[in-house]
């Protein structure tokens, strides 16, 4: 590559074209102070603190925006530079308020740091009186704009990185400042409290509110956000075993300095007073604290007794998509080798099986095909059955960046008006549950209009005939009839997707939690394969993942039908290898999936269960029944951080450590294996899940000899092809390497250069299956269940995060204006939502976001558990329960107080 050589402080250094003076200086170890510069942000050159002198021309240049040019002679410390820089800093300090001395930003303030580095103390300029703190009631962010130095980092972060656009400068001159629309408090603006601006602000102008601690933190731990499947890198700042602050991990090649509100402000559940600190045993109906010795002993004895009396298949284990890979690996080994059963499943059964199985059948790989960054190269992005701005915020940012800054076109398919609707080039609102028909209709247009990638299809994909035959009936008229979408719009959508050479698909639980969710996934995969959009820059399939380790838990074999690495139970050699390695006989029969376990428990065939880190009493459908069934088990062991609704039913409760108290790895939705690091010692007597599993195995006379999660991962690397070369110690380096060089082995799951893992992709034809119509007058509304940005999962952690709880603690039911009017429901009224199964209450939210006849409710509010409304209806292939939609009626129960 071409190089440019310049003289820097008397030394010759070389860089490549396009580098700024600052880039080259940093690379050469020369320190230049900066205030408005950040590697994640587009440069603006606003503060001039980074001035350097070009000794040839005598010009003072802002090094962060000036590209290097051959022959430059640069001094970063000349007297003129020093003098000017000092003036700039002094002017900034002059307009800084006196509260600077007691500012919470303390040593983290870059302005203060630069000033002290330069020996600037007393400021001789006359002080300029400044604007006061903005009164805000949100529990996340405090703004004291008197400390603002107008570096515009917050504005750029908000507009360029997270693309909310909540703030920009208002006015000019002395009164200029970053402000929201109409200068309202943040909570009345578009702000989503992602905290990105706070992390970037170089002064005390933006700080986190409700600080638990003031002063300097002592340690910073780089780890992974425990909430959604995006897997953002976060830095936990610690003081005396106490987590004080979470910030984006600057080094993460995934989140590029951003987080969402949960990552930034949702961490403090780890210090909740409700954390379990002791093992407990139920005595006369109430749980009593006991020693580990006793609790483990009792569980070992009972499991042994049940196994001996009723056989191994009377026991079942339910693992967690929130636990690490290592823990899931150990747990499935425990179930298979110690209990002797394949009755093991994990929490992702509830949302991702359709995706896992559907993708395996078509593209031959069970997950997302590309790294997230690629999506910004897409010309068209199809989002269907997903609301990424709340369920996978990081993906939401990437989509909005692609649209706003790269001119990508968003094709949104959603019956509900999500936040992305205003970003859409074309927004289709099909009738609920008609996705397969719509996607098939698009595929047919693509074939009929010859918009497919013929060569790729011919060379790489089998089953084209099957597909064309299957699509024959999906004419525009037919599809329009089913979906309620106009034929011309379907054609428009098909062209929008197929005409450009790079198009991506993003889908989520809105597709996979339906009956025939797998059909929708296959239909989408057909669409991607037809147009050649598999695993190339800007073209791929993104299957969103609800929880931090949904994919990993399955990869590790916490499944009733697969050993680690999706090796089938019936594959003789694979089985044998595991049997030799683990020195045990592996059960042969396929085990039970999560909901089947419940079914068998009801019939009295399952006697004992071990539930790790999951809360089925809130996360499964038909909750009342689930609760009764679990309560009726002979023996239930629950391992959790909190006394969840499920744990309350247990005979023995094991207290588990939080994500911040243990080591291990999570596999994010892209298939990136990332390392979790321990920030402090487990609370009370709680232990990491992996440790508990090992201890229990030993008590049952089957010691599994791993001294650490790392040893377990070393083994995983040997036995799971997809994880080979993940090298526990340098996981993140390798994942970055792959992202950069595009030359990955098929390790963590990225299909590269449009190659299918099995050599060929496979088209299958899928049929639209009509759903039962709304059951007439009795339940006239269609309920859509979904996520909200400020709560997570069943809420067992997010409702114990103090700030999230404060900001958003009440469930709501969103209802269209005409429906509200005809039922006499006002905004804020208490409403009872009744299905044929059960009922819940929530506050009405009258809005334009839902169409007539549809209501929307978020999950994640333990007080209004909407899963109660669903009957247990399983997709026949994937055994995923329907948890997305059902028929309900509404009753007003009280007026808004």
């Amino acid at each position, binding site marked *: 590559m071409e190089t440019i050589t310049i003289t820097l402080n008397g030394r010759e250094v070389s860089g490549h074209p396009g580098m700024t003076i600052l880039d080259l200086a940093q690379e050469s170890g020369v320190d230049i102070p900066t205030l408005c510069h950040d590697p994640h942000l587009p440069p603006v050159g606003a503060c001039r603190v980074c001035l350097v002198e070009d000794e040839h021309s005598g010009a003072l240049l802002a090094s962060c925006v000036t590209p290097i040019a051959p022959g430059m002679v640069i001094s970063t410390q000349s007297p003129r530079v020093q003098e000017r820089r000092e003036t700039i800093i002094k002017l900034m300090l002059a307009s800084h308020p006196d509260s600077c001395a007691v500012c919470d930003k303390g040593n983290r303030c870059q302005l203060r740091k630069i000033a002290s580095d330069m020996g600037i103390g007393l400021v001789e300029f006359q002080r300029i009186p400044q604007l006061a703190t903005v009164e805000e009631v949100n529990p996340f962010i405090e703004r004291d704009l008197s400390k603002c130095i107008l570096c515009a980092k917050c504005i750029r972060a908000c507009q360029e990185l997270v693309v909310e*656009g909540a*703030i920009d400068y208002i*006015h000019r001159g002395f009164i200029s400042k970053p402000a929201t*629309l*109409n200068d309202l408090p943040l909570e009345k603006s578009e702000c989503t409290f992602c905290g990105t601006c706070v992390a970037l602000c170089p002064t005390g102008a933006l700080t986190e509110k409700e600080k638990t601690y003031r002063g300097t933190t002592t340690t910073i731990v780089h780890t992974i956000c425990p909430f959604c499947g995006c897997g953002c890198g976060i830095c936990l700042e610690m003081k005396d075993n106490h987590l004080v602050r979470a910030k984006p991990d600057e080094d993460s090649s995934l989140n590029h300095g951003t987080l969402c509100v949960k990552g930034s402000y949702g961490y403090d559940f780890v210090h909740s007073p409700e954390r379990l600190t002791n093992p407990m045993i139920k005595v006369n109906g109430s749980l009593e604290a006991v020693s580990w010795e006793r609790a483990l002993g009792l569980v070992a004895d009972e499991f042994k007794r049940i196994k001996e009396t009723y056989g191994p298949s009377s026991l079942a284990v339910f693992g967690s998509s929130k636990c690490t890979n290592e823990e899931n690996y150990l747990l499935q080994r425990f179930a298979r080798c110690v209990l002797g059963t394949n009755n093991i499943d994990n929490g992702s059964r509830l949302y991702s099986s359709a995706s896992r199985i559907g993708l395996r059948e078509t593209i031959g790989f069970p997950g997302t095909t590309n790294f997230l960054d690629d999506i910004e190269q897409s010309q068209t992005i199809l989002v269907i059955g997903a609301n990424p701005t709340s369920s996978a915020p990081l993906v939401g940012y990437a989509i909005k960046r692609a649209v706003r800054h790269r001119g990508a076109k968003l094709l949104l398919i959603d019956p509900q008006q999500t936040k992305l609707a205003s970003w859409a080039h074309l927004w289709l609102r099909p009738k609920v549950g008609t996705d397969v028909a719509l996607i098939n209709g698009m595929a047919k247009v693509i074939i009929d209009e010859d918009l497919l990638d013929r060569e790729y299809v011919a060379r790489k994909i089998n089953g084209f005939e099957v597909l064309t035959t299957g699509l024959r009936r999906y004419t525009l008229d037919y599809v329009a009839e089913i979906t309620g979408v106009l034929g011309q719009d379907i054609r428009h959508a098909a062209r929008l997707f197929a005409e450009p050479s790079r198009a991506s698909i993003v889908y989520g639980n809105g597709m996979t939690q339906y009956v025939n969710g797998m059909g929708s996934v296959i239909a989408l995969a057909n669409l991607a394969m037809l147009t050649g959009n598999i695993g190339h820059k800007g073209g791929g399939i993104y299957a969103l993942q609800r929880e931090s380790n949904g994919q990993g838990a399955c990869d590790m074999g916490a499944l009733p039908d697969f050993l680690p690495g999706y090796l089938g139970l019936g594959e003789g050699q694979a089985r044998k290898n595991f049997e030799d390695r683990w020195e045990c006989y592996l059960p042969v029969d396929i085990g039970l999936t999560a909901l089947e376990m419940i079914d068998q428990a009801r019939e009295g065939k399952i006697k004992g269960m071990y539930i790790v880190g999951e809360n089925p009493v809130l996360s499964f459908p038909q909750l009342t029944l689930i609760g009764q069934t679990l309560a009726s088990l002979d023996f239930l062991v629950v391992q959790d951080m909190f006394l969840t609704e499920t744990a309350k039913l247990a005979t023995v409760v094991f207290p588990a450590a939080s994500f911040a108290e243990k080591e291990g790895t999570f596999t994010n939705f892209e298939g990136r294996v990332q390392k979790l690091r321990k920030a402090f010692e487990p609370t009370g007597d709680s232990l990491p899940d992996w440790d508990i599993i090992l201890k229990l195995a030993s008590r049952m006379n089957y010691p599994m000899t791993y001294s650490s999660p790392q040893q377990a991962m070393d083994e995983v690397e040997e036995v799971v092809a997809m994880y080979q070369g993940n090298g526990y110690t340098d996981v993140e380096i390798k994942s970055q390497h792959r992202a950069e060089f595009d030359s990955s082995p098929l390790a963590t799951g990225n299909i590269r250069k449009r190659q299918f893992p099995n050599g060929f992709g496979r088209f299958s034809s899928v049929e639209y299956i009509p759903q039962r119509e709304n059951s007439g007058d009795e339940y006239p509304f269609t309920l859509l269940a979904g996520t909200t940005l400020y709560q997570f999962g069943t809420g067992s952690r997010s409702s114990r995060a103090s700030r999230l709880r404060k900001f958003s603690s009440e469930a709501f039911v969103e209802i269209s204006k005409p429906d509200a009017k005809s039922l006499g429901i006002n905004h804020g009224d208490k409403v009872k939502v009744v299905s044929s199964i059960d009922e819940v209450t929530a506050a009405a939210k009258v809005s334009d976001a839902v169409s007539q006849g549809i209501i929307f409710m978020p999950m994640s509010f333990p007080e209004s558990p909407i899963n109660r409304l669903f009957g247990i209806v399983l997709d026949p292939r994937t055994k995923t329960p329907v948890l997305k939609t059902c028929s309900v009626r509404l009753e007003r129960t009280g007026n808004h107080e």
Partner: protein
Amino acid sequence: MNEMRERPNLNLARINEIIAHYQDQKWGLIPLLQKIQEEFGYIPPESTQPIAKALGLFPTQVQGVISFYTQLYTKPQGEKVVRVCRGTACHVRGGKTILKLVKQHLGIEEGETTPDYEYTLETVACIGVCALAPNIVIGTNTHGRMNPKKVAQLLGSRKDAEQHARP
């Protein structure tokens, strides 16, 4: 503020027409704002969102530009703008009192407009006729050597203004 309700003929359809003309042209923001102000005399706050959407900008960015230029207004202006000079010369010769009297007569504060949209009150720095201080400008006419009597003469017809005044 209740002026929103009473604002004369806010023709949203026309605003949307103007906006449509500049669809997807990011650079078109300033000419678009000028065009709206030319027709409406100000930029109705209701137009911020549609402008942002049409041009692919955030509403905050549009607000940022509007608030940057003092000659762009976000409130309807009166038919005549009354500008009271607060330059040094006028100040030392009682400009402050004149301002107070003008406020009383019009029943409004600085930056506000009378409910009948006849007058808008602004203050300005020196207008360059210090010799005649204190000065006020009404519309395009400059009035020098102001005193309470002259204020009453010029704006006296609005005696009842106080009744109209907003609290």
